């Protein structure tokens, strides 16, 4: 357990010192400040627009950061050779996987809190409001979705370089978010193995749309009932564990060598 936390903390230190996170926060601030000027066009119901676009940006930036930090961890260790002194310590491959995932997920989670606070500040400054309980609910589910995406990124980076892993994770998570909910309708005309193949993908990929409460926040709906909320959190936990276990299976026998032949 200590090893996992030590590895995760190293990821946090690296990300903070690489300054990627500051670029994203600065971009979000610039974007939100630009949103504040929208009233000059005379658009009504500005607060809803700001919430909707701001939340979309918070999701997009958190998605970029989650994938960016997750996929580079293992390939970077191998490329630079820092994997050798690290694995020479009494650290198991599973601890390494979980530590890297926890580090990447944690940093993305902290960044998303900053994004939500910034957005809430802008909305409140414009005379709108955020239902605190609903915002916390929305953030928790968003945080769960980042756990899954981060675990996906770690999985693909066990056997791919960081660029390839980022592309695959990006495409799959985007498809899981946008296309997956529509898949049952798209397969209505299919039958037999074709339909079964699509339905297999439908159940195998994570349903990230379940974690999205943006519409509730934008239109100030009520908070979710706790039963479905807990079930979605549990689903997120389960999918994360599945991806982390697959990562471990892909990584546990991986050979590391440099200039040995």
């Amino acid at each position, binding site marked *: 357990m200590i090893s996992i936390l030590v590895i995760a903390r*190293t990821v946090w*230190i690296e990300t903070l*010192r*690489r300054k990627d996170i500051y670029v994203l926060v600065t971009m979000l601030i610039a974007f939100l400040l630009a949103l504040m000027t929208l009233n000059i066009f005379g658009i009504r119901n500005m607060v809803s627009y700001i919430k909707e676009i701001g939340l979309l940006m918070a999701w997009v930036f958190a998605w970029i950061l989650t994938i960016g930090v997750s996929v580079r961890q293992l390939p970077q260790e191998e490329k630079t050779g820092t994997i050798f002194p690290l694995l*020479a310590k*009494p650290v198991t491959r599973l601890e390494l996987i979980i530590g890297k995932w926890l580090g990447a997920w944690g940093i993305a989670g902290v960044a998303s809190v900053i994004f939500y606070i910034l957005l809430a500040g802008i909305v409140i400054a414009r005379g709108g409001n955020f239902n605190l309980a609903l915002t916390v609910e929305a953030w928790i589910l968003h945080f769960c979705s980042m756990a899954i995406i981060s675990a996906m990124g770690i999985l693909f980076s066990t056997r791919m370089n960081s660029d390839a892993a980022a592309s695959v994770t990006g495409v799959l998570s985007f498809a899981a978010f946008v296309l997956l909910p529509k898949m049952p309708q798209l397969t209505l005309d299919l039958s037999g193995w074709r339909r079964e193949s699509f339905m297999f993908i439908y159940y195998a990929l994570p349903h990230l749309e379940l974690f999205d409460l943006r519409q509730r926040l934008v239109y100030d709906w009520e908070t979710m009932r706790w039963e479905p909320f807990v079930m979605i959190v549990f689903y997120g936990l389960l999918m994360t564990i599945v991806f982390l276990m697959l990562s471990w299976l892909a990584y546990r026998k991986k050979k*590391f060598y440099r200039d*040995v032949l």
Partner: protein
Amino acid sequence: MSESSAIEIRDLTVEFSTGGKIVPALQKLDLKVVQGEVYGFIGPNGAGKTTTMHVLLGFIEATSGIAEIYGKDVRHSIARRRIGYMPENPQMYRFLTGRELLIMAGQLFGMRGRPLAAKAAELLDLIGLAAAADRKIAGYSRGMMQRIALAQALVNDPDLVILDEPTGGFDPIGRIEIRKIIAGLRSAGKTVFFSSHELSEVERVCDRVGIIANGSLIADGHISQLVKAGETLEQYFVSILT
């Protein structure tokens, strides 16, 4: 496995698959390193030195055979609890300072708090990096990188220190310091297993040497037993390989 063995390797075979071909890196290697000795592991390029070390450290799983450290199978992380390792051309986390790296390395061995901070300070002093302790490793020279790599290998006060080409990046003064550190480890009863192309260095510091060629051990013993009077280790090495 006898109790005094730090390393025991039996019938170890490692094969790599490159370009569809199976290339043997180690072939039924047998090797034993006794607790408290300084063992030099030498051989030409591609002989299998680094592969052997990588198997011992769990980076590579052997195709067949047995490798144990203090009686523990090297495939389990517990076998690495009493080891310190310094890789060849070491690369450390460039975003950490030297002190942070040593603290992190110590924490991975379960160390913490003031004893760990004191150990880090002691090691930084030992390797002559006390003044650069709070500078990021990204700004270290090659020699400084070697020194911090050596320090992280010693942070857990290991019983077995594995050094892969430890003097490679050092200037003559640095080499003398490394020699002193190895002598200090020997007098503290530690085992040192190191590979090097610097045969004069090996001759100076080692109790015993093993010569590996084409993945098999072709000579193993005390230097005085292997090398005739008036002959150097280098001359013996060349004669046995040609």
